[in-house]
């Protein structure tokens, strides 16, 4: 079957999608967005986390056909998504993604071969600065989940962070550095607001 939906602000059309295929499979194998990782395929690990109309979900548990006409943000589009939030909705966010991507951003993304621009989102930079990345497999899912947390709760408590990331497994870091990274991003965000 054919499926149409928007990925990181760009409309996509995919053909020959098998009806039982997951959104994750379509993103990775048919659209060339390998950022979302495929690990457990049962919603246990969170490494395939994407935003579906603004809501963090496990893309392995969304049937591709259910994404028809909807907005998907993957880790590849996280920097643009964060920048758009900063520019167009300072201090709040654009949970639906319904207001689309500005033309300039879309053009620059096109120039960058659809892989986003060089610049990182604040949460990505914080993960690097805090040493929260080891093998990196769980990182995309954690970034998408953590970015959404900071969008809805700008000053999360440690409990909030643990809760928000409880659906994302990491087998390398022991999580401490990941928590550090989220705290760092939150602190930087607060500074920027002041």
């Amino acid at each position: 079957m054919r499926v149409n939906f928007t990925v990181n602000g760009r409309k996509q059309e995919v053909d020959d999608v098998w009806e039982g295929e997951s959104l994750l499979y379509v993103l990775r194998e048919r659209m060339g967005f390998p950022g979302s990782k495929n690990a457990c395929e049962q919603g246990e690990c969170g490494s395939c986390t994407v935003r579906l109309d603004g809501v963090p979900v496990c893309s392995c548990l969304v049937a591709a056909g259910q994404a028809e006409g909807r907005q998907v943000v993957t880790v590849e589009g996280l920097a643009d998504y964060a920048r758009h939030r900063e520019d167009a909705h300072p201090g709040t966010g654009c949970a639906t993604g319904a207001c689309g991507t500005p033309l300039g951003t879309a053009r620059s993304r096109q120039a960058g071969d659809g892989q986003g621009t060089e610049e990182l989102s604040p949460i990505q930079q914080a993960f690097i600065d805090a040493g929260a990345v080891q093998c990196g497999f769980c990182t995309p899912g954690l970034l998408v989940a953590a970015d959404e947390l900071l969008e809805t709760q700008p000053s999360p408590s440690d409990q909030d962070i643990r809760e928000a990331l409880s659906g994302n497994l990491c087998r390398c870091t022991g999580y401490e550095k990941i928590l550090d990274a989220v705290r760092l991003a939150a602190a930087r965000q607060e500074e920027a607001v002041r």
Partner: protein
Amino acid sequence: MDFLRPASWEEALAAKAEHPTAVPIAGGTDVMVEINFDHRRPEHLLDLNRIGELSEWQTGPDTVRLGASVPYSAIMENLRTELPGLALASHTVASPQIRNRGGVGGNLGTASPAGDAHPALLAAGAEVEAESVRGTRMIPIDAFYTGVKRNALAPDELIRAVHIKKADGPQQFSKVGTRNAMVIAVCAFGLALHPGTRTVRTGIGSAAPTPVRAEAAEEFLNAALDEGGFWENGKIITPSVAKQFAQLASGACSPIDDVRGTAAYRRHAVGVMARRTLGWTWEQYRDTGRTLEGAA
């Protein structure tokens, strides 16, 4: 495989009537796992995501009519006052990502004894609004679970909503697992005090072929509370009464040994949870009673 995408509830009913083996998919948190692992290859997937009303709820004078696809995250956020037991249970479902997609309709459709919503629904009292092209019927929650992963739905029926009694007293939910997140219950227990009718209702999860109420325990407790005038005097429940209630709750289980736990452990844990949830709710009831008295 065919992917059916009805745009309205009527279209969904027509599709289900035409293809009774079609598997409804909403949050996908059960169905997609089975498809990903090649455990299931339905001829038709019936996508319910386009039917907006399934994600809505209405609060009436006595009940909340909860759309089948209202995600657990929305229950936690919006219905904590009306449905405290279900809100607590919702919070123990898997992870934020799963709670953003999964809903009570899916829990009922799958009818796994380990579904987190069941003990809360049994304790609060609920009816399942099932509909087909033939018409609508309300299935009492006590009659809904018919076997392991089996329910009372006819092949052409879909779950439209669940009508859950609004809390008229404290409710609690307790669940045993190896960690807080991402856990399929080893066993679970829900308890609701209904001061209006002077009754207590319970629900047991993952400790019998279906979710069940601990009916003998309820009857014993209702009689004991009545006899001792506990509802009126608000006294602490006698330890011997709580103990007997816990034992009877244990006795309501018919668990199995499996990878998550042994039958003996489940029986024991259900007794412990029964005693604790009774203690917690009764404390809340006594507190509320005092507050109300003070206010008056």
